[in-house]
């Protein structure tokens, strides 16, 4: 009964969203405030109805209602409660409902938060968000309803894909969606600015925190996917340049470019067309990600069911969004003349320009690599896979450029820097970079990219430290505070700037991890009998034997290993090979001993007589990647605390 009501609520949500579109159109035509209020009410009610829909689907999962095809396909009675509750987004239909629900939540929040401050923008904002809602809810109602019924109720469900039964995977999709969907609000504001012709800096100021929040969620979502792959897939890596990974990485790259270039417009009133372009591209890439993932156009390890009718629909929807957004941009580009041009290459504007250039080239690189197989097949019928070798050739130089700019940018003033002053400021970072590279060379590093990378990372790290130092000293001198209080005062005065610097520090940590684990990975395949041992770097790993163990809904073969360094036992590791009930393929659970210096990573393979195939990796500095992301997150949260005005600045 509840489920029927929930299904009905989603259908009602569709009509409410359509009312939202109509009401905002009438409001724009007549200028009557009453219609704007109708539009707002419609958005609120859409959110309420979709919430009811989500609750109904959740209830269906928790109560094992296998009359629903979606519930039967994605859960079973054995499934632990945690995975049962989160199986809601374990498949296509539920993911889409979650997506639409988040969109309605954001739309309702935006309508509430900006109601008084952006009264003139409001009808446009309601129009764009309602139209997007109509697009998504139509797809749920007509093409992929999670409420579709089965003709016969099965005794038990088919169960959730065992690979998804992992905490990392439970939170990876919602975070990605929070990111993807989050860009819809800045996008809606940009559209409002274009449609209304009021293209000042206002839309950027209004959406800065929306963008930051979406960016943060997307960052977490992407890294969680990598973390999950590292722990769960058992191939010792965290990023494979798979098309679906790329689909989430592309909007991240353009969003990062946007976060930087918006500062140029705020400070210098230039980059106006560019900023609108970037947010449109970011949102379009979010939709493209949905299209690639959900249509099955591109073959990927994320083997989602492919269904041309859904693909056609998303493509049509994406086409309409592209036509309206780029159409409006082209029509209004005349109004978006920049008021100033760049004065000097030695200026912060110029570093932002290069920053954007690098990020956009990076996004284009990923775009080309992701779509090239499709392009070739469409034209010639040939099959190719573009994988790590391509990206490993083209990506490192871009990454190095970005991190280098990260060191220079914050030290350079707007408009025009004094070259002498700049030389003085960059002397120390540059010296440290040379020292680090030399040290790396002495320690036996011979490959160019890791060596340069080490230097660049040190350059940026020292530059960031100098930045903190000079800000702190400035306050100390002015206000006579002790240095910890001065640092705090400087940081809280401009949270945005300091948050950004903390994010940059996180990026440097992450880069250290990427270089370490990318360039110095040791990999070993061994066949072991109980009692055998093998050496891994300076460690000795001893295999004591394997045993079967019964889990809640799986049987596991557990391998018992000891890691020794000389005569000291430093860890016991227990990798598993699990056979889930209802699943054809066994899954691996890697066992990892992690320190700041290295991960020892073991996976247990199949038995060959009495011997077991074991894969072992020694991955240096992987922990730095995960920690770097947490630092980036904290920095972003700090920057989010900044209100619209910076204390002491004139508005």
């Amino acid at each position: 009964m509840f489920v029927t009501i929930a299904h009905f609520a989603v259908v009602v949500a569709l009509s409410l969203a359509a009312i939202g579109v109509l009401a905002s159109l009438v409001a724009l035509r007549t200028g009557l405030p009453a219609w704007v209020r109708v539009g707002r009410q419609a958005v609120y009610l859409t959110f309420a109805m979709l919430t009811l829909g989500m609750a109904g689907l959740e209830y269906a999962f928790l109560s094992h209602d296998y009359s629903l095809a979606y519930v039967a396909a994605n859960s079973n009675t054995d499934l632990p409660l945690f995975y049962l509750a989160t199986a809601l987004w374990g498949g296509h239909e539920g993911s889409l409902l979650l997506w639409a629900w988040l969109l309605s939540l954001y739309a309702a929040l935006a309508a509430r938060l900006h109601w008084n401050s952006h009264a003139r923008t409001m009808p446009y904002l309601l129009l764009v968000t309602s139209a997007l809602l109509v697009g998504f809810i139509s797809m749920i109602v007509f093409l992929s309803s999670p409420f579709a019924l089965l003709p016969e109720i099965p005794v038990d469900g088919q169960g959730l894909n065992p690979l998804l039964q992992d905490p990392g995977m439970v939170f990876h999709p919602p975070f990605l969606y929070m990111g993807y969907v989050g860009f819809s609000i800045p996008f809606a504001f940009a559209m409002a600015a274009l449609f209304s012709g009021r293209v000042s800096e206002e839309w950027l100021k209004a959406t800065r925190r929306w963008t930051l929040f979406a960016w943060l969620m997307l960052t977490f979502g992407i890294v969680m996917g990598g973390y999950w792959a590292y722990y769960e897939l058992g191939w010792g890596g965290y990023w494979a340049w798979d098309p679906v990974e790329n689909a989430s990485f592309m909007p991240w790259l353009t969003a990062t470019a946007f976060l930087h270039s918006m500062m140029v417009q705020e400070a210098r009133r230039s980059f106006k067309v560019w900023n609108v372009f970037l947010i449109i591209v970011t949102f379009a890439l979010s939709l493209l990600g949905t299209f690639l993932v959900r249509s099955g156009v591109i073959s990927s390890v994320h083997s989602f069911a492919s269904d041309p009718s859904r693909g056609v629909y998303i493509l049509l929807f994406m086409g309409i969004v592209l036509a309206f957004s780029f159409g409006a941009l082209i029509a209004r580009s005349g109004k978006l003349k920049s008021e100033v041009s760049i004065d000097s290459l030695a200026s912060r504007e110029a570093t932002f320009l290069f920053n954007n250039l690098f990020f956009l080239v990076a996004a284009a690189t990923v775009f080309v690599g992701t779509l090239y197989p499709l392009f070739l097949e469409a034209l010639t019928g040939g099959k190719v896979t573009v994988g790590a070798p391509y990206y490993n050739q083209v990506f490192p130089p871009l990454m190095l450029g970005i991190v280098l700019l990260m060191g220079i940018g914050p030290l350079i003033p707007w408009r025009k820097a004094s070259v002498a002053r700049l030389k003085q400021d960059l002397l120390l970072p540059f010296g440290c970079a040379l020292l680090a590279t030399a040290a790396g060379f002495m320690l036996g590093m011979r490959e160019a990219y890791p060596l340069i990378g080490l230097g660049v990372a040190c350059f940026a790290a020292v530059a960031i430290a100098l930045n903190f130092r000079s800000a702190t000293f400035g306050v100390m001198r002015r206000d006579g505070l002790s240095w910890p209080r001065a640092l705090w005062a400087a940081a809280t005065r401009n949270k945005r700037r300091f948050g950004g610097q903390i994010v940059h520090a996180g990026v440097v940590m992450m880069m250290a991890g990427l270089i370490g684990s990318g360039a110095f990975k040791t990999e070993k395949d061994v066949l072991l009998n109980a009692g055998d041992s093998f050496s891994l770097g300076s460690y000795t790993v001893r295999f004591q034997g394997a045993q079967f163990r019964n889990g809640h809904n799986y049987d596991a073969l557990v391998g018992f290993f000891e890691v020794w360094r000389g005569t000291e036992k430093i860890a016991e590791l227990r990798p598993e090979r699990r056979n889930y009930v209802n699943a054809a393929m066994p899954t691996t659970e890697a066992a990892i001993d992690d320190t700041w210096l290295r991960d020892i990573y073991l996976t247990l393979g199949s038995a060959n007589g009495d011997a077991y195939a074991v894969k072992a990796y020694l991955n240096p500095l992987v922990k730095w990647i995960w920690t770097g992301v947490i630092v980036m997150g904290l920095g972003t949260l700090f920057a989010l605390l900044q209100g619209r005005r910076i204390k002491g600045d004139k508005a």
Partner: protein
Amino acid sequence: MKTGAKMAIVIALLALVALFWRGLYLDPRHIPSVLEGKPAPLFAGTDLVSGQAVSLAQFKGKVVVVNFWASWCAECIKEHANLLKLQQEFGARSDFAMVGVAYQNKVEDARAFLARMGAAYPNIVDDKGSIGIDYGVYGVPETFLIDRHGMIRCKQFGPVLSDSYDKIAQRWLPALLENRELTSCD
């Protein structure tokens, strides 16, 4: 924005949408076998049920269907009934033969599978996977069609279910048996 830039955006977007449109009707999982049109690698073994010697060479001059399967493969269970049906439909012909190859399978497991699911044609075991390597098997099940001259003509990647069954039984096999030209395996 200059007119050129506007045009470039419009053209790029249209091209992109056209590309995706085309892409929707292609199958990204279709992998053409590099062996199509090449001589089929020979193999030999003992039939799991009768214990008699089986080799590809003994079927010279016949049209042969070689099916790679495994007892641990769920898709193989689904397609098994269709393979038996194929043998029933064409098995009476003296110029037709089928062979199953249990890929990376233990003899006992493969034998138990056949006892449970039924066997209508010879099956051998490829426990080291070396025949699979010769045939470039990506994953089971895969089904190869070999013509009278011992050439691999077509490959079905994935289980032989209703669509692919029709394709094999109504297009590939009749063409090869009647010595007609088979222009494409699609």
